[in-house]
Protein backbone atom coordinates (compact mmCIF):
# COMPACT_ATOMS: atom_id res chain seq x y z
CA UNK A 1 0.00 0.00 0.00
CA UNK A 2 2.77 2.41 1.01
CA UNK A 3 6.28 1.91 -0.31
CA UNK A 4 9.05 4.23 0.81
CA UNK A 5 12.34 3.69 -0.94
CA UNK A 6 15.75 5.08 0.05
CA UNK A 7 14.26 8.33 1.28
CA UNK A 8 16.72 10.99 2.45
CA UNK A 9 16.20 14.40 3.96
CA UNK A 10 18.94 16.69 5.27
CA UNK A 11 18.74 19.99 7.09
CA UNK A 12 21.94 21.86 6.39
CA UNK A 13 24.70 19.36 7.19
CA UNK A 14 22.49 17.14 9.35
CA UNK A 15 21.15 14.03 7.65
CA UNK A 16 17.84 13.69 9.50
CA UNK A 17 16.72 10.76 7.37
CA UNK A 18 19.27 8.73 5.47
CA UNK A 19 18.20 6.19 2.85
CA UNK A 20 15.22 4.96 4.83
CA UNK A 21 12.84 2.41 3.29
CA UNK A 22 9.65 0.93 4.61
CA UNK A 23 6.51 -0.88 3.47
CA UNK A 24 3.00 -0.86 4.80
CA UNK A 25 0.52 -3.43 3.57
CA UNK A 26 -3.23 -3.00 3.45
CA UNK A 27 -4.93 -3.65 6.79
CA UNK A 28 -1.77 -3.64 8.92
CA UNK A 29 -0.83 -1.67 11.99
CA UNK A 30 2.86 -0.88 11.56
CA UNK A 31 4.97 0.86 14.18
CA UNK A 32 7.94 3.12 13.62
CA UNK A 33 10.12 3.43 16.72
CA UNK A 34 13.50 4.84 17.56
CA UNK A 35 15.28 6.94 20.16
CA UNK A 36 14.82 10.70 20.41
CA UNK A 37 16.10 12.57 17.39
CA UNK A 38 16.20 9.45 15.25
CA UNK A 39 14.34 11.23 12.44
CA UNK A 40 10.93 9.58 12.84
CA UNK A 41 8.90 12.75 12.61
CA UNK A 42 11.00 14.02 9.70
CA UNK A 43 10.41 10.78 7.84
CA UNK A 44 6.68 11.17 8.50
CA UNK A 45 6.69 14.75 7.30
CA UNK A 46 8.52 13.76 4.15
CA UNK A 47 6.04 10.96 3.44
CA UNK A 48 3.03 13.22 4.03
CA UNK A 49 4.32 16.06 1.86
CA UNK A 50 5.32 18.53 4.58
CA UNK A 51 9.00 18.25 3.65
CA UNK A 52 10.27 17.68 0.14
CA UNK A 53 12.58 14.66 0.23
CA UNK A 54 16.12 15.23 -1.10
CA UNK A 55 16.21 11.75 -2.58
CA UNK A 56 14.17 8.58 -2.70
CA UNK A 57 10.58 7.88 -3.56
CA UNK A 58 7.20 7.46 -1.89
CA UNK A 59 4.56 5.37 -3.61
CA UNK A 60 1.01 5.07 -2.32
CA UNK A 61 -1.29 2.44 -3.80
CA UNK A 62 1.02 2.22 -6.79
CA UNK A 63 1.04 5.97 -7.50
CA UNK A 64 4.17 8.06 -7.10
CA UNK A 65 3.37 10.78 -4.57
CA UNK A 66 6.93 11.90 -3.82
CA UNK A 67 7.04 15.61 -3.03
CA UNK A 68 3.35 16.30 -3.65
CA UNK A 69 1.81 18.98 -1.43
CA UNK A 70 -0.10 17.70 1.65
CA UNK A 71 -3.57 18.46 0.31
CA UNK A 72 -2.90 16.33 -2.76
CA UNK A 73 -1.61 13.49 -0.61
CA UNK A 74 -4.69 13.81 1.58
CA UNK A 75 -6.71 13.57 -1.61
CA UNK A 76 -4.90 10.36 -2.49
CA UNK A 77 -6.12 8.86 0.80
CA UNK A 78 -3.30 9.34 3.32
CA UNK A 79 -3.47 11.70 6.30
CA UNK A 80 -1.09 12.48 9.14
CA UNK A 81 -1.59 13.71 12.70
CA UNK A 82 0.82 15.81 14.71
CA UNK A 83 2.93 14.85 17.68
CA UNK A 84 2.41 18.30 19.14
CA UNK A 85 -1.37 18.47 18.92
CA UNK A 86 -2.71 21.28 16.79
CA UNK A 87 -6.38 21.77 17.67
CA UNK A 88 -8.22 24.70 16.09
CA UNK A 89 -8.46 26.45 19.45
CA UNK A 90 -11.29 28.91 19.03
CA UNK A 91 -13.85 26.59 17.51
CA UNK A 92 -15.71 23.63 18.98
CA UNK A 93 -14.76 19.98 18.73
CA UNK A 94 -17.62 19.46 16.27
CA UNK A 95 -16.36 22.27 14.04
CA UNK A 96 -12.80 20.96 14.32
CA UNK A 97 -13.82 17.56 13.03
CA UNK A 98 -16.07 19.13 10.38
CA UNK A 99 -13.01 20.75 8.80
CA UNK A 100 -11.80 17.23 8.13
CA UNK A 101 -15.24 16.01 7.03
CA UNK A 102 -15.59 18.90 4.57
CA UNK A 103 -12.79 17.26 2.63
CA UNK A 104 -15.29 14.72 1.35
CA UNK A 105 -18.40 16.84 1.03
CA UNK A 106 -19.27 20.53 0.63
CA UNK A 107 -22.60 19.89 2.32
CA UNK A 108 -22.80 21.28 5.84
CA UNK A 109 -25.44 18.96 7.23
CA UNK A 110 -23.63 15.93 5.87
CA UNK A 111 -20.26 17.12 7.22
CA UNK A 112 -21.86 17.64 10.62
CA UNK A 113 -23.36 14.14 10.70
CA UNK A 114 -20.05 12.71 9.55
CA UNK A 115 -18.18 14.64 12.26
CA UNK A 116 -20.55 13.42 14.95
CA UNK A 117 -20.17 9.82 13.81
CA UNK A 118 -16.38 10.07 13.87
CA UNK A 119 -16.47 11.72 17.30
CA UNK A 120 -18.54 8.81 18.56
CA UNK A 121 -15.98 6.39 17.14
CA UNK A 122 -13.05 7.96 19.00
CA UNK A 123 -15.09 8.42 22.17
CA UNK A 124 -15.62 12.18 21.97
CA UNK A 125 -19.37 12.04 21.49
CA UNK A 126 -19.97 13.91 24.73
CA UNK A 127 -17.49 16.70 24.04
CA UNK A 128 -18.77 18.00 20.71
CA UNK A 129 -19.55 21.48 22.03
CA UNK A 130 -16.29 22.05 23.90
CA UNK A 131 -13.81 24.54 22.50
CA UNK A 132 -10.56 23.19 21.06
CA UNK A 133 -8.58 25.26 23.54
CA UNK A 134 -10.34 23.75 26.56
CA UNK A 135 -9.43 20.12 25.91
CA UNK A 136 -7.15 17.96 28.05
CA UNK A 137 -4.06 16.37 26.51
CA UNK A 138 -5.86 13.05 26.09
CA UNK A 139 -8.82 14.72 24.41
CA UNK A 140 -6.53 16.68 22.08
CA UNK A 141 -4.92 13.44 20.96
CA UNK A 142 -8.34 12.00 20.24
CA UNK A 143 -9.32 15.13 18.37
CA UNK A 144 -6.21 14.85 16.17
CA UNK A 145 -7.27 11.32 15.41
CA UNK A 146 -10.89 12.26 14.74
CA UNK A 147 -10.09 15.15 12.41
CA UNK A 148 -7.72 13.04 10.34
CA UNK A 149 -10.20 10.19 10.26
CA UNK A 150 -12.99 12.49 9.10
CA UNK A 151 -11.17 13.12 5.81
CA UNK A 152 -11.82 9.46 5.00
CA UNK A 153 -8.26 8.17 4.65
CA UNK A 154 -7.26 4.64 3.73
CA UNK A 155 -3.90 5.08 5.47
CA UNK A 156 -3.49 7.01 8.71
CA UNK A 157 -0.09 8.26 9.87
CA UNK A 158 -0.16 8.76 13.64
CA UNK A 159 2.66 10.69 15.24
CA UNK A 160 2.97 9.74 18.93
CA UNK A 161 -0.71 9.65 19.80
CA UNK A 162 0.09 8.06 23.15
CA UNK A 163 2.86 10.34 24.37
CA UNK A 164 1.83 12.25 27.47
CA UNK A 165 -1.08 9.98 28.31
CA UNK A 166 -1.50 8.06 31.57
CA UNK A 167 -1.80 4.24 31.52
CA UNK A 168 -5.61 4.23 31.57
CA UNK A 169 -5.79 6.71 28.73
CA UNK A 170 -3.29 4.64 26.76
CA UNK A 171 -5.42 1.52 27.12
CA UNK A 172 -8.41 3.50 25.89
CA UNK A 173 -6.69 4.95 22.85
CA UNK A 174 -5.16 1.58 21.93
CA UNK A 175 -8.73 0.30 21.77
CA UNK A 176 -9.75 3.22 19.59
CA UNK A 177 -6.85 2.64 17.18
CA UNK A 178 -7.72 -1.05 16.93
CA UNK A 179 -11.33 -0.24 16.13
CA UNK A 180 -10.20 2.20 13.44
CA UNK A 181 -8.11 -0.51 11.84
CA UNK A 182 -11.01 -2.94 12.09
CA UNK A 183 -13.11 -0.39 10.22
CA UNK A 184 -10.69 -0.79 7.32
CA UNK A 185 -8.09 1.93 7.79
CA UNK A 186 -4.45 0.92 7.59
CA UNK A 187 -2.23 2.52 10.24
CA UNK A 188 1.41 3.56 10.44
CA UNK A 189 2.31 4.96 13.82
CA UNK A 190 5.34 6.54 15.40
CA UNK A 191 5.58 5.65 19.04
CA UNK A 192 7.73 6.13 22.06
CA UNK A 193 5.62 4.17 24.51
CA UNK A 194 7.12 0.72 23.96
CA UNK A 195 4.54 -1.44 25.72
CA UNK A 196 1.71 0.14 23.81
CA UNK A 197 3.37 -0.18 20.46
CA UNK A 198 4.35 -3.81 20.98
CA UNK A 199 0.81 -4.72 21.93
CA UNK A 200 -0.65 -2.82 19.01
CA UNK A 201 1.66 -3.15 16.02
CA UNK A 202 2.08 -6.32 14.03
CA UNK A 203 5.37 -5.17 12.56
CA UNK A 204 7.94 -2.64 13.70
CA UNK A 205 10.58 -0.57 11.99
CA UNK A 206 13.40 0.90 14.02
CA UNK A 207 15.01 4.15 12.99
CA UNK A 208 18.27 5.34 14.53
CA UNK A 209 20.22 8.41 13.48
CA UNK A 210 18.22 8.60 10.31
CA UNK A 211 18.88 5.01 9.26
CA UNK A 212 16.51 2.06 9.35
CA UNK A 213 18.37 -0.45 11.55
CA UNK A 214 15.82 -3.20 12.01
CA UNK A 215 12.46 -4.51 10.90
CA UNK A 216 10.35 -7.35 12.22
CA UNK A 217 7.79 -8.52 14.74
CA UNK A 218 7.79 -6.80 18.13
CA UNK A 219 9.27 -9.90 19.75
CA UNK A 220 12.19 -10.18 17.35
CA UNK A 221 12.86 -6.44 17.57
CA UNK A 222 13.09 -6.57 21.36
CA UNK A 223 15.91 -9.11 21.08
CA UNK A 224 17.81 -7.39 18.30
CA UNK A 225 21.20 -6.34 19.73
CA UNK A 226 21.43 -3.36 17.38
CA UNK A 227 18.12 -2.04 18.66
CA UNK A 228 19.07 -2.55 22.30
CA UNK A 229 22.30 -0.64 21.73
CA UNK A 230 20.48 2.15 19.96
CA UNK A 231 18.27 2.64 22.99
CA UNK A 232 20.60 1.82 25.87
CA UNK A 233 24.03 2.66 24.51
CA UNK A 234 27.04 0.84 23.11
CA UNK A 235 27.78 -2.45 24.81
CA UNK A 236 24.39 -2.71 26.45
CA UNK A 237 23.38 -5.79 24.50
CA UNK A 238 26.35 -7.73 25.85
CA UNK A 239 25.61 -6.65 29.43
CA UNK A 240 21.99 -7.67 29.16
CA UNK A 241 22.86 -11.08 27.80
CA UNK A 242 25.36 -11.73 30.56
Amino acid sequence: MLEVRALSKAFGGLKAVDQASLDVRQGEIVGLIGPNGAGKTTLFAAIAGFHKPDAGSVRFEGKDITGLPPHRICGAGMVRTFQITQPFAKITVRENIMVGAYFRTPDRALAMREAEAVAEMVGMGGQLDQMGADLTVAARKRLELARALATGPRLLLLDEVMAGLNPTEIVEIVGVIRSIRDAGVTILLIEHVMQAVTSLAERLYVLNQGRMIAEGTPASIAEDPQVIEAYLGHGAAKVLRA
Partner: protein
Amino acid sequence: MNRTTVLCALGLVAAVVFPLAAPNYLVNIGMLVFFVAFLGQSWNISGGFAGQTSFGHVVFFGTGAYTSTILQVTWGWNPWVAWPAAMLMGAIVGWGIAFLSFRAGLRGSYFALITLAFAEVFRILANSVPFTRGGLGMLIKSDPRPINFQFKDPIWLYYIALALCVVSLVVAWQLTRNRFGARLVAIRENEDAARALGIDVFAEKVRVLTLSGAMCAAGGTFYAQKYLYIDPSIAFGVDKSVEMLLVTMVGGAGTIFGPLIGSIALTTINEVTRGVASVVPALKNVQPLSLVVYGVMLVLIVARLPDGLTGLFRRKPRHA
Protein backbone atom coordinates in the same frame (compact mmCIF):
# COMPACT_ATOMS: atom_id res chain seq x y z
CA MET B 1 -37.47 31.91 15.10
CA ASN B 2 -34.76 32.40 17.65
CA ARG B 3 -33.70 35.54 19.45
CA THR B 4 -30.98 36.53 16.98
CA THR B 5 -33.32 36.36 14.00
CA VAL B 6 -35.86 38.56 15.81
CA LEU B 7 -33.17 41.09 16.77
CA CYS B 8 -31.86 41.20 13.19
CA ALA B 9 -35.33 41.77 11.78
CA LEU B 10 -36.04 44.54 14.31
CA GLY B 11 -32.66 46.15 13.60
CA LEU B 12 -33.29 46.10 9.88
CA VAL B 13 -36.76 47.63 10.24
CA ALA B 14 -35.34 50.35 12.50
CA ALA B 15 -32.55 51.05 10.00
CA VAL B 16 -35.06 51.36 7.15
CA VAL B 17 -37.49 53.59 9.06
CA PHE B 18 -34.87 55.75 10.77
CA PRO B 19 -33.99 58.17 7.91
CA LEU B 20 -37.68 58.89 7.25
CA ALA B 21 -37.90 60.59 10.63
CA ALA B 22 -34.35 61.80 11.25
CA PRO B 23 -32.80 65.11 10.16
CA ASN B 24 -30.36 65.06 7.25
CA TYR B 25 -27.40 65.42 9.60
CA LEU B 26 -28.25 62.14 11.30
CA VAL B 27 -29.05 60.42 8.01
CA ASN B 28 -25.55 61.26 6.88
CA ILE B 29 -24.03 59.82 10.04
CA GLY B 30 -26.13 56.69 9.61
CA MET B 31 -24.91 56.39 6.05
CA LEU B 32 -21.29 56.61 7.26
CA VAL B 33 -21.92 53.97 9.93
CA PHE B 34 -23.13 51.45 7.36
CA PHE B 35 -20.53 52.39 4.80
CA VAL B 36 -17.63 51.99 7.23
CA ALA B 37 -19.20 48.76 8.52
CA PHE B 38 -19.22 47.51 4.92
CA LEU B 39 -15.55 48.39 4.42
CA GLY B 40 -14.76 46.82 7.78
CA GLN B 41 -16.57 43.65 6.73
CA SER B 42 -14.44 43.44 3.59
CA TRP B 43 -11.40 43.56 5.86
CA ASN B 44 -13.00 41.12 8.31
CA ILE B 45 -13.51 38.42 5.70
CA SER B 46 -9.81 38.11 5.00
CA GLY B 47 -8.38 39.57 8.23
CA GLY B 48 -10.92 38.25 10.72
CA PHE B 49 -12.18 34.95 9.36
CA ALA B 50 -9.06 33.85 7.53
CA GLY B 51 -6.66 35.60 9.91
CA GLN B 52 -4.70 37.32 7.12
CA THR B 53 -4.22 40.68 8.82
CA SER B 54 -3.74 43.46 6.30
CA PHE B 55 -2.48 46.98 6.96
CA GLY B 56 -3.07 48.07 3.39
CA HIS B 57 -6.65 47.22 2.54
CA VAL B 58 -7.08 50.74 1.22
CA VAL B 59 -5.30 49.52 -1.91
CA PHE B 60 -8.57 47.83 -2.96
CA PHE B 61 -10.66 50.80 -1.91
CA GLY B 62 -8.53 53.15 -4.00
CA THR B 63 -8.45 50.76 -6.94
CA GLY B 64 -12.24 50.73 -6.94
CA ALA B 65 -12.55 54.49 -6.55
CA TYR B 66 -10.08 55.21 -9.34
CA THR B 67 -11.36 52.53 -11.71
CA SER B 68 -14.94 53.76 -11.71
CA THR B 69 -13.94 57.44 -11.71
CA ILE B 70 -11.54 57.08 -14.65
CA LEU B 71 -14.08 55.03 -16.61
CA GLN B 72 -16.67 57.68 -15.90
CA VAL B 73 -14.68 60.88 -16.35
CA THR B 74 -12.23 59.86 -19.05
CA TRP B 75 -14.21 57.25 -20.96
CA GLY B 76 -17.73 58.47 -20.37
CA TRP B 77 -19.06 55.28 -18.78
CA ASN B 78 -22.19 55.35 -16.71
CA PRO B 79 -21.21 54.98 -13.02
CA TRP B 80 -23.63 52.11 -12.47
CA VAL B 81 -21.83 50.18 -15.21
CA ALA B 82 -18.44 51.29 -13.93
CA TRP B 83 -19.29 49.93 -10.47
CA PRO B 84 -19.02 46.21 -11.30
CA ALA B 85 -15.95 47.00 -13.40
CA ALA B 86 -14.38 48.58 -10.29
CA MET B 87 -15.21 45.44 -8.30
CA LEU B 88 -13.62 43.29 -10.98
CA MET B 89 -10.49 45.45 -10.81
CA GLY B 90 -10.47 45.14 -7.01
CA ALA B 91 -10.74 41.38 -7.36
CA ILE B 92 -7.84 41.34 -9.83
CA VAL B 93 -5.64 43.43 -7.54
CA GLY B 94 -6.63 41.23 -4.57
CA TRP B 95 -5.77 38.13 -6.54
CA GLY B 96 -2.44 39.60 -7.66
CA ILE B 97 -1.31 40.75 -4.22
CA ALA B 98 -2.37 37.46 -2.65
CA PHE B 99 -0.68 35.41 -5.34
CA LEU B 100 2.62 37.26 -5.01
CA SER B 101 2.63 37.46 -1.20
CA PHE B 102 1.46 33.94 -0.43
CA ARG B 103 3.58 32.36 -3.14
CA ALA B 104 6.53 34.01 -1.41
CA GLY B 105 5.31 32.35 1.81
CA LEU B 106 4.60 35.58 3.69
CA ARG B 107 2.60 35.07 6.86
CA GLY B 108 1.41 37.12 9.82
CA SER B 109 3.15 40.43 10.30
CA TYR B 110 5.18 40.02 7.11
CA PHE B 111 2.01 39.77 5.09
CA ALA B 112 0.55 42.77 6.94
CA LEU B 113 3.62 44.84 6.10
CA ILE B 114 3.69 43.86 2.44
CA THR B 115 0.07 44.95 2.04
CA LEU B 116 1.02 48.30 3.55
CA ALA B 117 3.83 48.53 1.01
CA PHE B 118 1.48 47.71 -1.87
CA ALA B 119 -0.90 50.45 -0.76
CA GLU B 120 1.94 52.96 -0.67
CA VAL B 121 3.14 51.91 -4.11
CA PHE B 122 -0.36 52.44 -5.49
CA ARG B 123 -0.58 55.84 -3.80
CA ILE B 124 2.71 56.96 -5.32
CA LEU B 125 1.70 55.60 -8.73
CA ALA B 126 -1.63 57.41 -8.57
CA ASN B 127 0.36 60.54 -7.78
CA SER B 128 2.61 60.23 -10.79
CA VAL B 129 0.89 58.53 -13.73
CA PRO B 130 -0.99 60.78 -16.17
CA PHE B 131 -4.32 58.96 -16.36
CA THR B 132 -5.12 59.65 -12.69
CA ARG B 133 -4.24 63.35 -13.10
CA GLY B 134 -1.66 62.92 -10.31
CA GLY B 135 -1.96 64.95 -7.16
CA LEU B 136 -4.65 67.19 -8.66
CA GLY B 137 -7.12 64.41 -8.12
CA MET B 138 -10.20 63.70 -10.17
CA LEU B 139 -13.45 65.57 -10.06
CA ILE B 140 -16.71 63.93 -11.07
CA LYS B 141 -19.07 66.43 -12.66
CA SER B 142 -21.99 67.11 -10.35
CA ASP B 143 -25.26 66.14 -12.00
CA PRO B 144 -27.52 64.78 -9.28
CA ARG B 145 -29.75 62.33 -11.07
CA PRO B 146 -30.23 58.70 -10.01
CA ILE B 147 -29.00 57.50 -13.42
CA ASN B 148 -25.67 59.20 -12.57
CA PHE B 149 -25.40 57.55 -9.14
CA GLN B 150 -25.83 61.02 -7.62
CA PHE B 151 -28.77 62.06 -5.51
CA LYS B 152 -30.28 65.30 -4.24
CA ASP B 153 -31.68 63.64 -1.13
CA PRO B 154 -29.04 61.98 1.13
CA ILE B 155 -31.59 59.31 2.00
CA TRP B 156 -30.71 57.40 -1.20
CA LEU B 157 -27.05 57.07 -0.43
CA TYR B 158 -28.10 56.03 3.06
CA TYR B 159 -30.18 53.20 1.63
CA ILE B 160 -27.42 52.13 -0.74
CA ALA B 161 -24.94 52.03 2.15
CA LEU B 162 -27.46 50.06 4.19
CA ALA B 163 -27.90 47.60 1.32
CA LEU B 164 -24.13 47.18 0.97
CA CYS B 165 -23.86 46.57 4.70
CA VAL B 166 -26.67 43.99 4.66
CA VAL B 167 -25.11 42.17 1.71
CA SER B 168 -21.76 42.07 3.52
CA LEU B 169 -23.45 40.72 6.64
CA VAL B 170 -25.04 37.97 4.57
CA VAL B 171 -21.65 37.11 3.08
CA ALA B 172 -20.14 36.91 6.57
CA TRP B 173 -23.08 34.85 7.83
CA GLN B 174 -22.64 32.43 4.95
CA LEU B 175 -18.97 32.07 5.86
CA THR B 176 -19.97 30.87 9.33
CA ARG B 177 -21.93 28.02 7.79
CA ASN B 178 -20.25 26.88 4.61
CA ARG B 179 -17.17 24.91 3.70
CA PHE B 180 -15.17 27.87 2.43
CA GLY B 181 -15.68 29.69 5.74
CA ALA B 182 -14.78 26.62 7.78
CA ARG B 183 -11.57 26.30 5.81
CA LEU B 184 -10.70 29.96 6.33
CA VAL B 185 -11.12 29.59 10.08
CA ALA B 186 -9.00 26.43 10.03
CA ILE B 187 -6.27 28.34 8.19
CA ARG B 188 -6.45 31.17 10.73
CA GLU B 189 -6.27 28.78 13.67
CA ASN B 190 -3.48 26.57 12.38
CA GLU B 191 -2.07 26.50 8.89
CA ASP B 192 -0.16 23.23 9.26
CA ALA B 193 -3.14 21.34 10.61
CA ALA B 194 -5.27 22.81 7.83
CA ARG B 195 -2.79 21.54 5.23
CA ALA B 196 -2.73 18.10 6.79
CA LEU B 197 -6.52 17.94 6.54
CA GLY B 198 -6.42 18.37 2.80
CA ILE B 199 -6.92 22.12 2.55
CA ASP B 200 -5.06 23.86 -0.27
CA VAL B 201 -4.05 26.74 1.99
CA PHE B 202 -2.51 28.84 -0.77
CA ALA B 203 -5.55 28.60 -3.05
CA GLU B 204 -8.01 29.41 -0.25
CA LYS B 205 -6.01 32.44 0.87
CA VAL B 206 -5.85 33.77 -2.69
CA ARG B 207 -9.57 33.19 -3.04
CA VAL B 208 -10.50 35.08 0.11
CA LEU B 209 -8.35 38.09 -0.73
CA THR B 210 -9.89 38.21 -4.20
CA LEU B 211 -13.35 38.31 -2.65
CA SER B 212 -12.32 40.87 -0.07
CA GLY B 213 -10.68 43.03 -2.76
CA ALA B 214 -13.83 43.06 -4.86
CA MET B 215 -15.98 44.05 -1.88
CA CYS B 216 -13.64 46.79 -0.75
CA ALA B 217 -13.42 48.19 -4.30
CA ALA B 218 -17.22 48.47 -4.36
CA GLY B 219 -16.84 50.73 -1.32
CA GLY B 220 -14.32 52.86 -3.20
CA THR B 221 -16.79 53.58 -6.00
CA PHE B 222 -19.49 54.43 -3.46
CA TYR B 223 -17.13 56.88 -1.79
CA ALA B 224 -16.24 58.57 -5.08
CA GLN B 225 -19.92 58.95 -5.97
CA LYS B 226 -20.71 60.42 -2.56
CA TYR B 227 -17.96 63.07 -2.52
CA LEU B 228 -17.48 63.41 -6.31
CA TYR B 229 -13.77 63.91 -5.77
CA ILE B 230 -10.79 61.61 -5.14
CA ASP B 231 -7.06 62.16 -4.96
CA PRO B 232 -4.20 59.77 -4.21
CA SER B 233 -4.07 60.44 -0.47
CA ILE B 234 -7.83 60.05 -0.06
CA ALA B 235 -8.02 56.92 -2.20
CA PHE B 236 -4.82 55.22 -1.02
CA GLY B 237 -4.18 56.96 2.33
CA VAL B 238 -3.21 54.74 5.24
CA ASP B 239 -5.93 56.14 7.49
CA LYS B 240 -8.66 54.28 5.59
CA SER B 241 -6.77 51.02 6.10
CA VAL B 242 -6.54 51.79 9.79
CA GLU B 243 -10.23 52.61 9.94
CA MET B 244 -11.23 49.25 8.44
CA LEU B 245 -8.93 47.38 10.78
CA LEU B 246 -9.99 49.41 13.79
CA VAL B 247 -13.76 49.00 13.46
CA THR B 248 -13.29 45.27 13.01
CA MET B 249 -10.94 44.86 15.96
CA VAL B 250 -13.13 47.01 18.21
CA GLY B 251 -16.29 45.19 17.20
CA GLY B 252 -14.79 41.71 17.09
CA ALA B 253 -12.67 40.21 14.32
CA GLY B 254 -13.98 37.03 12.75
CA THR B 255 -17.55 37.64 13.91
CA ILE B 256 -20.55 38.50 11.73
CA PHE B 257 -21.53 41.71 13.47
CA GLY B 258 -18.08 42.85 14.63
CA PRO B 259 -17.50 45.48 11.93
CA LEU B 260 -21.02 46.92 12.29
CA ILE B 261 -20.79 47.15 16.07
CA GLY B 262 -17.30 48.63 15.79
CA SER B 263 -18.50 51.15 13.24
CA ILE B 264 -21.41 52.22 15.46
CA ALA B 265 -19.09 52.54 18.47
CA LEU B 266 -16.39 54.53 16.68
CA THR B 267 -18.83 56.83 14.87
CA THR B 268 -20.58 57.56 18.16
CA ILE B 269 -17.27 58.34 19.84
CA ASN B 270 -16.31 60.52 16.90
CA GLU B 271 -19.50 62.60 17.10
CA VAL B 272 -19.52 62.85 20.89
CA THR B 273 -15.89 63.91 21.13
CA ARG B 274 -16.42 66.48 18.43
CA GLY B 275 -19.30 67.89 20.45
CA VAL B 276 -17.31 67.83 23.67
CA ALA B 277 -14.28 69.45 22.06
CA SER B 278 -16.37 72.34 20.80
CA VAL B 279 -17.89 72.95 24.25
CA VAL B 280 -14.95 72.43 26.64
CA PRO B 281 -12.38 75.20 26.11
CA ALA B 282 -9.46 73.18 27.49
CA LEU B 283 -9.94 70.57 24.75
CA LYS B 284 -10.18 73.05 21.87
CA ASN B 285 -6.56 72.50 20.90
CA VAL B 286 -6.67 68.71 21.04
CA GLN B 287 -7.44 68.07 17.42
CA PRO B 288 -8.99 65.68 16.68
CA LEU B 289 -9.92 64.48 20.12
CA SER B 290 -11.54 61.36 18.66
CA LEU B 291 -8.12 59.93 17.73
CA VAL B 292 -7.05 60.14 21.37
CA VAL B 293 -10.16 58.27 22.44
CA TYR B 294 -9.71 55.70 19.63
CA GLY B 295 -6.19 55.04 20.86
CA VAL B 296 -7.24 54.56 24.47
CA MET B 297 -10.10 52.35 23.36
CA LEU B 298 -7.88 50.18 21.20
CA VAL B 299 -5.47 49.66 24.10
CA LEU B 300 -8.33 48.69 26.39
CA ILE B 301 -9.84 46.32 23.83
CA VAL B 302 -6.60 44.58 23.01
CA ALA B 303 -5.80 44.19 26.71
CA ARG B 304 -9.25 43.38 28.11
CA LEU B 305 -11.49 42.23 25.27
CA PRO B 306 -9.47 40.42 22.62
CA ASP B 307 -12.72 39.30 21.01
CA GLY B 308 -13.94 42.89 20.70
CA LEU B 309 -17.22 44.34 21.86
CA THR B 310 -19.10 41.30 20.53
CA GLY B 311 -17.23 39.32 23.18
CA LEU B 312 -19.30 41.15 25.80
CA PHE B 313 -22.55 39.74 24.45
CA ARG B 314 -21.47 36.25 23.64
CA ARG B 315 -22.43 33.66 26.18
CA LYS B 316 -19.41 31.88 27.52
CA PRO B 317 -19.04 28.37 26.13
CA ARG B 318 -19.92 25.74 28.64
CA HIS B 319 -17.02 23.94 30.24
CA ALA B 320 -17.95 20.31 30.71
